C-alpha cells in the first residue's frame, strides 16, 4: 500500500494498462507534452510513451470521441479525454448515438472498447460552462457504462477495468477529488463494475451518493455519530451497471435513505435511485427518501453563490435529521 492522491492513482492505472497492452493509447486536448492534461492526470505519460500514444488533438470534441469509436472498432483500445464534462455537449452524437449504440444496431457485429474520461463538478469558481455534473444523461443512455470513482483506492482499479471492458465506458471524474489521498494497493488489482462499496457501516440511515458528496457524507456521518445517529454510507462506484443489491439491502436494514449528489436536482441520478428503492423496498421504508442536490440553476461563478449551490455538510446532516 502506498498513500497517494487520486490523480496519481488514476495515472498509475492508465500507465499500467499502457505497459500491459500496446493497443491502449490516449487522445485529447492538451494531454501531452506541453500540458499533461488540464488537471495533470496524464502528466509525464507522453514523455514515457511518446506523442503517438499520448496524442494531443485539435479542439474537436465530437471528432475526438468519434475517432475513439473508429479506433476501438478496428482493434485499438482508445482512452479519450474530454477536458471538461460540460464540453461533452459537443460530442453527444458520437458518445450516445454511435459508441453506445453500435454493438446493438449492428446486431453484435462489433464491440466498442473505448474509455471516455471527463471531469464533472464545481468548487473551482469557473462558472456555468466548466462546473456541471451531467452524469445522469449518460446513465440514461443504454449501451454506455458509467463509472464514478470518488476515492483514490478505487480509481486505479476502476480505470483498469474500464480500459479492459469490451463496452464503451464514460469514466467520470470530479475536480475536487483529484487531490484526495488514500492508501492504494501496490499490486495490480481490478475493481469489477457493478459492485458498490459500503464506505461506512451504520444502522439508522443509509446515505448513497457520488464524488465529493461521499467525502462530505463520511464527515457528516462522523458528526452525527456524536448525536447517536448511525449512518451507513454507500458508494456505487459505477452507475451503469448499478449495484442495486447492496443499496436495497442497506435500506432494508436502516429503513431510511438520503441521496446526495452535486447534480442539479430535477432529473439527477438521485431521482432514478429514489424510484428504484421505492419500487423494490417500499415496505421497508420508514420515511420518504430524501434527495440532497444542487438547486435547479446553472452553476454560478461567485464564491458565495457557488458555495450555496453545492450541497454542504449542513444540508446533508439536516436531510438525515429530517427523517430519523
Amino acid at each position, binding site marked *: 500500500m502506498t498513500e497517494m492522491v487520486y490523480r496519481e492513482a488514476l495515472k498509475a492505472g492508465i500507465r499500467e494498462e499502457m505497459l500491459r497492452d500496446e*493497443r491502449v*493509447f490516449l487522445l485529447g486536448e492538451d494531454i501531452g507534452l506541453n500540458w499533461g492534461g488540464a488537471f495533470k492526470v496524464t502528466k509525464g505519460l507522453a514523455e514515457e510513451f511518446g506523442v*503517438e500514444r499520448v496524442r494531443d*488533438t*485539435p479542439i*474537436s470534441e*465530437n*471528432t*475526438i*470521441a*468519434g*475517432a*475513439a*469509436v*473508429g*479506433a*476501438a*472498432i*478496428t*482493434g*485499438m483500445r*482508445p482512452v479519450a479525454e474530454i477536458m471538461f464534462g460540460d464540453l461533452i455537449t459537443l460530442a453527444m*452524437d*458520437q458518445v450516445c*448515438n*454511435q459508441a453506445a449504440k*453500435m*454493438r*446493438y*444496431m*449492428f*446486431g*453484435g*457485429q*462489433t*464491440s466498442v472498447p473505448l474509455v471516455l474520461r471527463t471531469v464533472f463538478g464545481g468548487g473551482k469558481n469557473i462558472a456555468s460552462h466548466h462546473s456541471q455534473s451531467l452524469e445522469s444523461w449518460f446513465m440514461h443512455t*443504454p*449501451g454506455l*457504462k458509467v463509472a464514478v470513482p470518488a476515492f483514490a483506492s478505487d480509481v486505479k482499479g476502476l480505470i483498469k477495468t474500464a480500459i479492459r*471492458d*469490451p*463496452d464503451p465506458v464514460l469514466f467520470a471524474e470530479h475536480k475536487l477529488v483529484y487531490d484526495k489521498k488514500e492508501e492504494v494497493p501496490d499490486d495490480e488489482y481490478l475493481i469489477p463494475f*457493478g459492485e458498490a462499496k459500503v464506505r461506512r457501516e451504520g444502522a439508522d440511515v443509509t446515505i448513497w451518493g457520488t464524488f465529493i458528496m461521499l467525502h462530505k457524507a463520511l464527515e457528516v456521518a462522523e458528526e452525527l455519530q456524536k448525536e447517536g445517529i448511525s449512518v451507513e454510507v454507500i458508494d456505487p462506484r459505477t452507475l451503469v*451497471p448499478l449495484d442495486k443489491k447492496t443499496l436495497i439491502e442497506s435500506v432494508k436494514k436502516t429503513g431510511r435513505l438520503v441521496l446526495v449528489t452535486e447534480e442539479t436536482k430535477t432529473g439527477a441520478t438521485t431521482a432514478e435511485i429514489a424510484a428504484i428503492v421505492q419500487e423494490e423496498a417500499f415496505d421497508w421504508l420508514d420515511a420518504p427518501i430524501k434527495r440532497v442536490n444542487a438547486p435547479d440553476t446553472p452553476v454560478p461563478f461567485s464564491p458565495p453563490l457557488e458555495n450555496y449551490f453545492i450541497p454542504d455538510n449542513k444540508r446533508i446532516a439536516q436531510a438525515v435529521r429530517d427523517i430519523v
Partner: protein
Amino acid sequence: MTVDKKILKELFTRTLKTRLFEEKVWDLFGENIVPGTLHLYLGQEGVAAGVTTALKDSDWIQSSHRGHGHVVAKGADMNAALAELLGKKTGSCKGKGGSMHITQFDVGVLGATGVVASGLPIAVGAALSCQMRKTDDVVVCFFGDGASNNGTFGESLNMSAIWKLPLVWIVENNFYAMGTPIKLTCPSSTVAQRAEGYCIPSQVVDGNNALEVYEATVEAVKRAREGGGPTLIECQTYRMKGHSRFDPAKYRPQEEADHWLSGEKDAVNVIQKIAIEQGAITEKDAEKIREKLQKEVDKAGEFAKKSDFPEPEETLDDVYAEAF
C-alpha cells in the same frame, strides 16, 4: 492510366450488381414488406463500384445513411443484406439496424449511420488505427454533399490532414440534401473546394462513370498507403429516385433530371459501354453477367422473404457484451 481489362469487367460487374440489388429493394418495397424508410442508392452505383474496386479486402469503408450500395459493392453477403432490410433475424444486424444501419463488418464495412456526417470522425479513428497498428490498410469514407455542411466535416478533414492519415474522403455530390438543392447551402461550385483549407488534395469526377471514380481512387489510395495522407474526391452524381421512401422529388427541375437520368448518363450503361469498347467484355458477356447477378439477387430476395423475424425478446440482446 491504362486500366486492366479484368478491372473494367469488375467495374461493370460491381456497378450492375449494385443496381440489381437496389432494384430488388425497390421491388420488395413495392410489395410493402420493407419496414421503415429507405434511402436508395439507385443512380449512384458508379461511385461505390469505382471506389471499392480500388480497394483490397482488408481496407475499410465507412458508409452513410445511403449505404446499401456501399456494402454490396464492398462484397456484402446479399442474403444477409436483404434480410436486414426486411428486419429479419438472418439479417447482418439481426434485424436491429435496417436500411440506415446496414453493415457487414466482416467485409470491411465500419458501419452505416442514420446521423448525417457522423461517419467522418469514425473514419478518422479507423484510419488512425490502421496507421498506429502499422497495417497498410486504408479507410474510405462516403458522405453526401449535405454532410459537408456539418461540423464533423471540418473537424475530421483537419484531423486527417494533420496526422497524414491513410484516408480517402468520398463526397457523393448528388446535388440535393433531401429536397434542398446544394445551391442553397453551399456557396462554392464544388464541395472539393473546401479540402484546400486543410491542404488536402482533391479532385472532382463524374460519379456516374465508375472508371473515372476508380482511377481517382487508385491514385488516392496509393497516396494514402504510402503515408502521403488523405485525399478528397468529389463524385458528382444523381439520385434516380427521391430522397427516401415517399419522396417523388418533384422539386427537381425537369431539365436537370432529364440530363442526369438519361440513358447516356446511366452508371450501368456508361461502364458497360466503356468495358465493351475497350474489349474487356462483349455484349454477350454483359448479358451473361447480368443473368448471373440477377439470379443471385433473386435468390437473396427469396432468402430474405423466407427468413423469420427475430423473437421479440431479442430486443434485449446485444446492448452490452454481457448482459447484467
